[in-house]
């Protein structure tokens, strides 16, 4: 048993886990009930589990909870609290991006993380490598490129 503390969507959290090896993904989903972050592949390929840790997009399926002690974490549920995140959500709705929507939390957090880390809109729009089996890629790109026009 171990206690790990971090800041999650602006709120201090302390969780008790059996193992510090537990991936952040499953602590978010099963222990904290924040189910917006999704399990897709478990091996850091698909990106459905992407969250932002200390300002960088990270795949939470293979991020051990022990590694995020003291970290600042944002998940899809906290995206609206940041002006850039709220604009991203507006763009996603304007372009009607999601289909099934399952990968979109990760898609949006990956885009947000890149933009927040200073990457350009055009580089972010073409650089994402998240998998989406519904095929929303064109609208993802359009929504990101439109960000500068969205208040």
């Amino acid at each position, binding site marked *: 048993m171990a206690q790990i503390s971090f800041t999650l969507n602006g709120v201090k959290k302390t969780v008790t886990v*059996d193992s510090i090896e*537990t*991936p952040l*993904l*499953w602590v978010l*989903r*099963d*222990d904290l*009930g*924040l*189910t*917006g*972050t*999704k*399990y*897709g*592949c*478990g*091996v850091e*390929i*698909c990106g*459905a589990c992407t969250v932002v840790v200390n300002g960088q997009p990270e795949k939470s399926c293979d991020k051990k909870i022990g590694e995020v002690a003291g970290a600042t974490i944002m*998940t*899809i*549920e906290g*995206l*609206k609290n940041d002006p850039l995140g709220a604009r991203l*959500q507006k763009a*996603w*709705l304007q372009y*009607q*991006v*999601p*289909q*099934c*929507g*399952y*990968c*979109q*939390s990760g898609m*949006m957090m990956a885009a947000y993380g890149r933009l927040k880390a200073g990457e350009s809109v055009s580089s972010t*729009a*073409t*650089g*994402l*490598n*998240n*998998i*989406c*089996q*519904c*095929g*929303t*890629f*064109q*609208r*993802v*790109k359009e929504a990101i490129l439109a960000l500068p026009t969205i208040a």
Partner: protein
Amino acid sequence: MRANTAKKDTLVMDRRSFLAGAAAAFLMPVTLTVASRPAAAAATGVGAYIRIGDDNSVTLITGQTEMGQGIASGLAQIMAEELMLDWAQVRFEHAPVNPQLYGLPGWGVQLTGGSTSTMMWYTPLRTASAKAAYRLRAAAALTFGGTIDQWSMVVGGKVKHATYGEQTFASVLGQIANTSDPATVSFAGTKRIVGQPVRRIDLASKVDGSAIFGADVMLPGMVFASVVHCPTITGTVKTCPTRASGAIAVVNLGDAVGVVAKNTWSAMRIASSLQSKVVWNKPTNLTLLDSTALATAAQALQDTASPPNLKPYDTAGTPDDKLGQIDVTYKTPFLAHACMEVLNATVSITKADGVVTFVELWVPTQGQSFIPSTVRSVAGLEKLTDAQIKVNSMLCGGGFGRKIEQDYVLQAIKLAMAVNKPVKLTWSRPQDFKNDKYRPYASMHVKMGGDVNGINAMVYRNVSASINFQHGSNPEDTGAVAGAVKLPYSIPHRRVEFTPLPTAVPLGYWRSVGESYNTFAMESAIDEMALALKQDPIDYRLRMLSGDVRATAVLQKLKSSPNYTGMKAGQRGVAFLKGFNSYVAVALEITLDSSARIKVTKAHYVIDCGVVINPNAVEAQMQGGLVHGIYSALYSRVTFANGVPSVTNFSNYRVLTPSDMPKVTVDILEGTPDTAMPGGVGEAGVPCVAPAIANAYARLKSTRVRELPFHPGMTMSD
């Protein structure tokens, strides 16, 4: 023979036969109940399609599963048009299981598949909504005074009278029970919401993490489970450990070992570690589980004049003496569904005095109809009535046909029975890939003769692992030849045959089913003839379209589109599909990368899907169909070596990422729409992609590729 007879959780269904019977069933009366609140609807015992809330919100209750295709919004648009609603007051809910009320009109089965949701519900739902509008006016007359004819509908969920003014729907509901349906139904006749690109009602919850998919269900006191199956597909459990360190329970599920733990990660990890400790009953029919052996067997059936169960599906004229110009065989692989949301189900069981009295399930499912019988197939639950089984249909994180099946539902029920707590079962991604119900392998032999005016004769034989055949029903399989029959083209001498390939590989419906392989063969073959005769591929098809007005319009529109003429002719390929009651033409432009691998750089679709409910959704389905078509044509396949599947994760099942996406444009025609039955769009975007790529490649490299995928063995890092 009947393969795989040991499996009881497979689905016995001939979806195309159901579809064929659909037209007559449109005459079925639609029961309509308008209730003021859910409790009232439940109390009537008949449920409802439309519920008006005290806040004047209007909720469509639908048996169709929202799995990304936008069906919830599309059907709600049909309702909103007739009831003259503000789009903002519209909601949707998945219906409980009740095939009589919520089953597809015509199939009588509550499932989502075959691109049938809009085509089958359009008229019944429009009619139900128009009746509701009439009855709301009648209720207003009873509530406030005046006659029905003096009350008219007003936009925003209101009715209006010269004396009594505007009143909300909610304010007249008290009298709804005292009204009856009109003798004749009259429709709004407007296109205020139908045909408009209104925003989908499910998307706001999909950009803030609040949408609850099946995988996201949380219940008080819940425990978490995962499974491990035999490494050799279809193997079963002989003996397994009864406990494991860190596990709440280890359960022999028959087809797998289930592990229940405090969280999903523990359950997956422990399940994986148990695989080598389980004694498995490995299947003995390994040649039926080996893709190399199956390909050889398929070729042998192609080479046999009269193989077992051969059936002609479409014959005319005397084809055999007019062939000889082209004699080729196309092959397409087994494929996995690879929904982003892995299989999962949550089950809670209530007992009284040790006897199960109620089973509640939360399932991302395309096959609601089959769940009650899945419940009753479990020991101790045989006698449960429908009223003792509640199914909550959850949002699906992709379905593509996989979530019609019942295997994962059955496992979750057994787990809940074993631990006496609510259980959420979540498969790991490797388990999801290695235990799919795969798209069948198919081999298609085409012999043709023709001239510049078209193909005069064709003998087409499909040898494929038949879904129906495996599921134990009639060896006939109309789905297996879909895309090869009912062609828009006039081929005066023709014979289309199907013979099932015996296999024990578990099979299932994969987005666009038969069309996903037959359209590849048929549209490649037509292109081969056009190319051999130096004919323009669109003109050649147009000449063969004996008077099919809609097909002609779609192909002519493609040819005149700047998105088509702007593609480089030497890198361009086209294909055409009449299917799912829609007409789709696709043109693609390809290029080769430094490793000589194909990259699709541009795509243009022209679709006539009849009555368009939401053009934005039609466009989205074409974009998505393109992605499905590209990944399956270029990269992906599942092979089996003595029953062991080749895929374990996305690492060795290459799909697309944003950088693979070409620029795609879509023209939607609504030339002569069939107002009785709009066309389907969910699958229509897929089938033309593979042949269009092959046709473009034939021009670019003067090489015809007849076996998919183009680039097998690629990984996500390639």
